[in-house]
């Protein structure tokens, strides 16, 4: 559905996107995961024709973006990161206006507009002005405006930023529902949990480059020799002694919670417990964990997703 090849974008001396290549298959949810400034929005803006690229190619539905920009626009639906709705109009007026831009009209427009509002759970608020909406409701309307013309591919740029958990949950359910109905989705986020829950495949971006891509299992496999131990202790933990345990690569401390990144052997747990017992440190909670995307990002880049 979408093929991006060696994409480059410069802003003066700054290389915002550097040689990015990825493809999105029809019917899948593809995630672009990375911290702020990684190049996710720039990539999206190039694909949707908002900004010009400095190199590379983009094809959507088999059409080259440079040669068939207008036809490509009909295939795409965009949900921008910033709320892009008219506060002084009603929900229905917003959705029907944007649907009309894509050529919908008459009874078909009306029906599709109401169906879209129902899909995002705003059918009861169709005649209400958007300025009376909560933040979560505006986010849902933001999605509806990008969906109304039933694009082949929906591009969502961090659609859940700054909203309550209930609205986030509703949005994610809507996305999964759309995907079940066959819509291809390109989803950018800096929330690891969203990417893990929604995406079939993920590209991890940092500083304008893709550092890894694949499905969840493939990405975890990049650091499969790693595993994690989470401990909660009482009192001051003996960090110096713990750092000497063989195979412990890193210890993250947050209050009385310790997270050990361990490599290879699986004997670290026993060794860590021995050290804690020697120092008479009481353990309140304990769990082991396979690597998640946050760990993958940290291992590959040395930074956290939300630094």
């Amino acid at each position, binding site marked *: 559905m979408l093929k991006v090849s060696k994409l480059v974008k410069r802003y003066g001396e700054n290389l915002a996107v550097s040689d990015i290549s990825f493809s999105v298959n029809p019917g899948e949810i593809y995630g672009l995961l990375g911290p702020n400034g990684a190049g996710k929005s720039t990539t999206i803006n190039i694909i949707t024709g*908002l900004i010009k690229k400095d190199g590379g190619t983009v094809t959507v539905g088999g059409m080259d973006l440079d040669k068939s920009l207008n036809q490509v626009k009909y295939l795409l639906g965009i949900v921008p990161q910033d709320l892009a709705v008219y506060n002084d109009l009603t929900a229905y*007026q917003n959705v029907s206006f944007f649907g009309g831009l894509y050529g919908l009209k008459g009874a078909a427009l009306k029906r599709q507009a109401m169906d879209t509002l129902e899909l995002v759970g705003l059918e009861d608020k169709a005649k209400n002005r958007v300025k009376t909406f909560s933040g979560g409701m505006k986010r849902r309307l933001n999605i509806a405006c990008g969906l109304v013309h039933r694009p082949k591919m929906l591009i969502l740029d961090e659609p859940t930023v700054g909203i309550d958990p209930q609205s986030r949950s509703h949005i994610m359910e809507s996305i999964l529902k759309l995907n079940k109905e066959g819509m291809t989705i390109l989803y950018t986020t800096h929330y690891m949990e969203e990417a893990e829950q929604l995406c079939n495949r993920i590209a991890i971006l940092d500083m304008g480059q893709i550092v890894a891509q694949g499905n969840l299992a493939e990405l975890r496999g990049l650091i499969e020799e790693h595993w994690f131990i989470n401990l909660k202790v009482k009192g001051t933990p003996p960090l110096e002694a713990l750092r000497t345990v063989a195979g412990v690569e890193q210890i993250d401390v947050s209050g009385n919670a310790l997270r050990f990144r361990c490599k290879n052997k699986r004997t670290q747990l026993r060794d860590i417990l021995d050290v804690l017992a020697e120092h008479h440190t009481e353990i309140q909670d304990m769990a082991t964990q396979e690597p998640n995307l946050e760990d993958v990002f940290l291992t590959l880049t040395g930074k956290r997703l939300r630094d």
Partner: protein
Amino acid sequence: MRTLRFLKKEALHLITAPETLLLMILFPVAITWVLGTALSSATGHTFDLPEVKMPMVSEGGMLSDIFIANSQASGLTFEKTEQAEVDRRIAAGTLKGYVELTGRDLILHSDDQGSLEAMMVKMYATAFTKQANLSALAIKEGKLGQAVPQFKSFARVEGIDGLNEPNSFGYYGVTMLTMIIMYGSIQAMSLLALEKNARTAQRLKASPYPMNRVFFVKAATACGIILLQALILILINHFVYGIDYRHIGMVMVMLIPLAVFVTSLGVAAYQVLRKAGAASAFLNLITVASVFMGRGYTPMPSDNGLFDVLYRISPIGWINEGLFTYIYQGETGAILSAGSKLLGLGLVMLLIAYALFRREEGSDLVAAD
């Protein structure tokens, strides 16, 4: 169809804004009344006389009937009343004056002989008696046909140059109208700024709807709404205040160049300054200056060189002059000149604004915003 839908959306933004109703319609209606009433002497050519109603006591007959009938053209109303009724009202303190017409006497009985009412009645009565005496002399000498020339039944009021002039309401009925149209530049600017403020510029650019059409749809909507507001104002002024615009349809056509000019000014200001707040402040300043220079707030002395120069370079001065000349003298030369100047300037500003808009569209500014 898409363009019609876009036009409708743009119109909704303006019409549903509270300031459209308050500032663009109610405010000028109120200010026209305030200025028209309070500054009625400022126009210097006519002023509104009080309505005079006065009882008249007479022995009856043709003379009193003619006296009463002829008085109405002068704005005076005399009501035949019995002497007893007059005496009763004087005793009750509810009557300040009355006229008495006997066989050979016409007497004005008044408590306040220096008042405007008393002077008006005295002037009319004096003219009446002189005319009656002339007619009597002509009859006596058997030369009635030669003695009294056949004048019209009323005296016409004109300006000193022999041309019709507006009264205070007529004056402000035009100047407040053009002032409000000038404020429409801020409406035009706000329509263009809307997409940036609402962050919807990205959606528009990502859609297949051409961005150049977005620009012209917004400009056309602003222009249309400005003219609609003008029409509403004209109708209110005409039907509520009785202001005469000679031919409302023609006046509306004459206002089109001004609407184009202010729309272009608004969109150009935004495209150049790139900030709605800065553009709004600039347009407010330009409007106040143009209206002042164009004698919109009050008539200026015409023998003052500086004010004359300012008047001649103010777009509001051009259109006001043109409208006054058309409405009160039926001449279209000044309005055609004003229209062509406004249209020319407006198109230049529109092209500049469009060029800046297209340059922005081709850049990364929309996404960066």
